[in-house]
């Protein structure tokens, strides 16, 4: 059993506590989801369970945490490792050895486990996770999802009684995330271990968990079964968005159309809500075709491979159009990032061509193309290096050839647009995660590129910030620009994208209006669409969002 007794913790150098008077018990075998906005204390909560707080991250601690009666402030993480296995966000930073079996062996070797026992446990844990064929594989050869499973195998090999997972699916596509989460659920069911999971995307996990703990500013503001927490008003002000199915159920309940417990998956929703949905018609305007804008980027039969290796893009043709938000989706390794690097000339096609505003990218430098195509990378830290936020934005303008007077105007506009005026003299890297992301975005948008490409812009963002970002991007597209989102976030795409380009193994497998492409995809179809298609006689494939479904029910 894990017990937090009135725990507060403040990191050295910080004034605000990361955790504040946390009191709760987690029973053996429970599957607990810890949710909350960025900076709400979720990661600190996890690090208290295996003793990284206070032994690795120093600070002021009051109260206590115990795991199986062991006070974590008196036992080092290395001593708690036999009881608590931990899985972090980025698999790359937790794999120590160079291949799967040696990495799994690392923790056991550290504990002085006999070699025969290590051998047996490696076999067992890989079998358990369906990874036996990867036993001798170099870690570098594995996909992101496989690496995360390998890291979980390493954590499980020491047979911990508690498994703590800190946003383990944030870098995974929906299929890999589903596979990891169902593996965790299977472990809990088969081995009876306690699971503590941190996750932003509630819709991915609520069906698996027994309990949700919601943190806000380091304090527990909600704690209970998923149906109770999602059905109550306790999530208001936490920055968390309800899963679409829960959101729909609550709205139907509010309108007096339905009564019952909040459904947690599509199956439950079908059973509970079918009587309300069945027989309804999709409004005609929902089905109306939209006018495509002028093409700003034209990709024509592009083939590409890295260093003479296998082809990553295999004869790809599509257009990025003005006035539209295009979502670029596909499994990890399907060629999404490779494709967008062709838009601004970072990569040149092996065959075929890419035209930006009618100019062949093979004939223009990246610096020239950067005036038309802005690319925001996933990690804001890859962008930021200047001494102040002002300098960071001016840097882009200087290299894109803006005049001094024009630069000042564009700078002021960008600072106002992203709410960064008060931080203009701050060192960008000292800002919080969300603020850094805004600076990175501003450092590209400041030059007003006609095509704005963002790689996983909603990763790690809570609902409110995500909504604000998407509102900005929709407005930006409406001004005659094009926005391209490289993302795995199905619900955001359903809500905000006009078009979807779906890639698989370097080929286009779906290209068109979002509802058409998403509805046709077994992997990327949103839950609301699954529900509508299951319960409506016809036209369900046009419904991707709660609002659309409510329109149909009105």
């Amino acid at each position: 059993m894990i017990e937090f007794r009135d725990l507060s913790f403040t990191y050295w150098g910080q004034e605000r506590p990361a955790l504040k008077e946390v009191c709760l018990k987690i029973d053996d075998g429970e599957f607990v989801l810890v949710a909350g906005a960025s900076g709400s204390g979720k990661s600190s909560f996890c690090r208290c369970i295996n003793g990284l707080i206070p032994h690795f991250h120093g600070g002021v601690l009051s109260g206590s945490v115990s795991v199986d009666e062991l006070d974590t402030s008196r036992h080092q993480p290395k001593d708690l490792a036999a009881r608590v296995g931990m899985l972090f966000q980025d698999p790359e930073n937790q794999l120590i050895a160079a291949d799967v079996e040696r990495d799994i062996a690392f923790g056991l070797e550290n504990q002085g486990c006999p070699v025969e026992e290590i051998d047996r446990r490696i076999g067992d844990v890989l079998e358990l996770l369906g990874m036996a064929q990867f036993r001798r594989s170099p870690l570098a050869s594995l996909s992101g999802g496989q690496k995360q499973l390998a890291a979980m195998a390493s954590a499980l090999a020491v047979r911990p009684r508690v498994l703590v997972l800190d946003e383990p699916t944030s870098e995974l596509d929906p299929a890999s995330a589903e596979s990891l989460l169902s593996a965790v659920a299977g472990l809990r069911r088969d081995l009876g271990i306690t699971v503590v999971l941190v996750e932003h995307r509630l819709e991915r996990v609520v069906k698996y968990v027994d309990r949700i703990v919601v943190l806000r500013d380091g304090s527990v503001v909600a704690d209970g079964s998923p149906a109770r927490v999602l059905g109550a008003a306790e999530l208001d002000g936490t920055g968390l968005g309800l899963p679409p199915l829960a959101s729909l159920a609550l709205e139907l309940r509010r309108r007096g159309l339905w009564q019952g417990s909040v459904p947690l998956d599509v199956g439950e929703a079908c059973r509970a809500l079918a009587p309300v949905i069945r027989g309804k018609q999709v409004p005609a305007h929902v089905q109306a075709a939209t006018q495509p804008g002028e093409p700003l980027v034209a990709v024509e039969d592009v083939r590409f491979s890295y260093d003479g290796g296998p082809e990553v893009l295999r004869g790809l043709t599509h257009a990025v159009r003005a006035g539209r938000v295009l979502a670029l989706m596909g499994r990890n390794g399907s060629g999404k990032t490779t494709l967008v690097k062709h838009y601004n000339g970072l990569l040149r096609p092996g065959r075929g061509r890419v035209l930006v505003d009618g100019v062949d990218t093979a004939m223009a430098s990246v610096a020239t193309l950067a005036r038309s195509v802005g690319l925001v990378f996933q990690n804001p830290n890859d962008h930021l290096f200047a001494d102040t936020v002002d300098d960071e934005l001016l840097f882009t303008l200087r290299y894109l050839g803006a005049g001094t007077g024009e630069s000042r105007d564009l700078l002021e506009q960008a600072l106002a647009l992203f709410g960064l005026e008060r931080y203009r003299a701050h060192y960008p890297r000292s800002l919080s995660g969300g603020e850094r992301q805004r600076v990175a975005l501003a450092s590209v948008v400041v030059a007003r590129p006609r095509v704005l490409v963002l790689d996983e812009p909603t990763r790690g963002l809570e609902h409110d910030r995500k909504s604000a970002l998407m509102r900005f991007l929709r407005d930006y597209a409406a001004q005659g620009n094009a926005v391209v989102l490289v993302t795995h976030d199905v619900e955001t795409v359903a809500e905000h994208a006009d078009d979807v380009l779906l890639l698989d193994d370097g080929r286009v497998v779906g290209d068109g209006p979002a509802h058409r492409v998403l509805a046709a995809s077994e992997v990327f179809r949103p839950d609301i669409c699954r529900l509508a298609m299951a319960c409506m006689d016809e036209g369900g494939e046009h419904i991707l969002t709660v609002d659309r479904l409510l329109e149909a029910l009105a």
Partner: protein
Amino acid sequence: MQVAYSFRDSGSAMHRLSPFVVPAWVAAVVLGVLVLEHPIALLALCIATVPVAVGSGVLRPWASTMRYVLWMGLAIVVINAIVSNQGSHVLLQAGFSLPLLGTPRLTVEALAYGAAMAVRLAAIISAFTLLNLCVHPDDLMRVAIRLRLPYRSVLVTSLSTRFIPVLLADAATIMDAQRSRGLEFDRGNVIERARNRGALILPLLSNSLDRATQVAEAMESRAYGSSARRTFYRDAPLLAEDVVALVLLGVAAALAVAAGPLGLCAYAYYPSLDSLPLPADGWLALGALVALLLSPIPLAAARRRRRD
């Protein structure tokens, strides 16, 4: 084409040898090319690394590295020809003098010496490339620990090697991010270029520190340092073939060291080149040395046959 510098398990018999053997082979090759002077001997030792690359099934990745060595070798020949004005056979002579360098002269001897240096460098790089390609980094770590080097230092070194590809990938991503903002790293004068590099180096350093912290957290969480008696999984056994190979490579190293004082495979480049043909004892010593350096190939095959 990328440079291949990391372990590739081709499944060859060489890859199954004890991890002590290949480092010993590298030591013998390096010792040989550092001690011997004769160009035929240097060339023979350099060429002797090729069958090992073939036998290890890593010819392609090995060749991808050696391609760059060709350019480095050419640079050595050119630089030596320019800066060395020794030698009695002058091909070209400038009509002016340079401070420190004197009158620039292009001599046959300087060209030959430069070529010998290039072959020497090629042999050393070839041997170390094969070490990287044929021995798993964790096995190399184990070798270092068995040689009584401190575990913590060895682990840190091993981790640094493991994260080199990650660091290079990080650098490539940061460069892409900055180029996407219009930055041209090679634009401007020296000062501007140095400032441009800041856009790469600062984020790279900062990201690396973040990564180091996360790796340390993961290691703590996986019981690093919890037991005074750490065990080692996959501790490759030293079989009879490995011992024979180590003995033969030891003999090769001893022969190379002895060849210097005995005047075997000696050669003078300045003031005039010695005659090229090796004396009979030189051929004998060189033949024996090459045979000893190639001995791990049949021994590896024999080891695999016996194990299978």
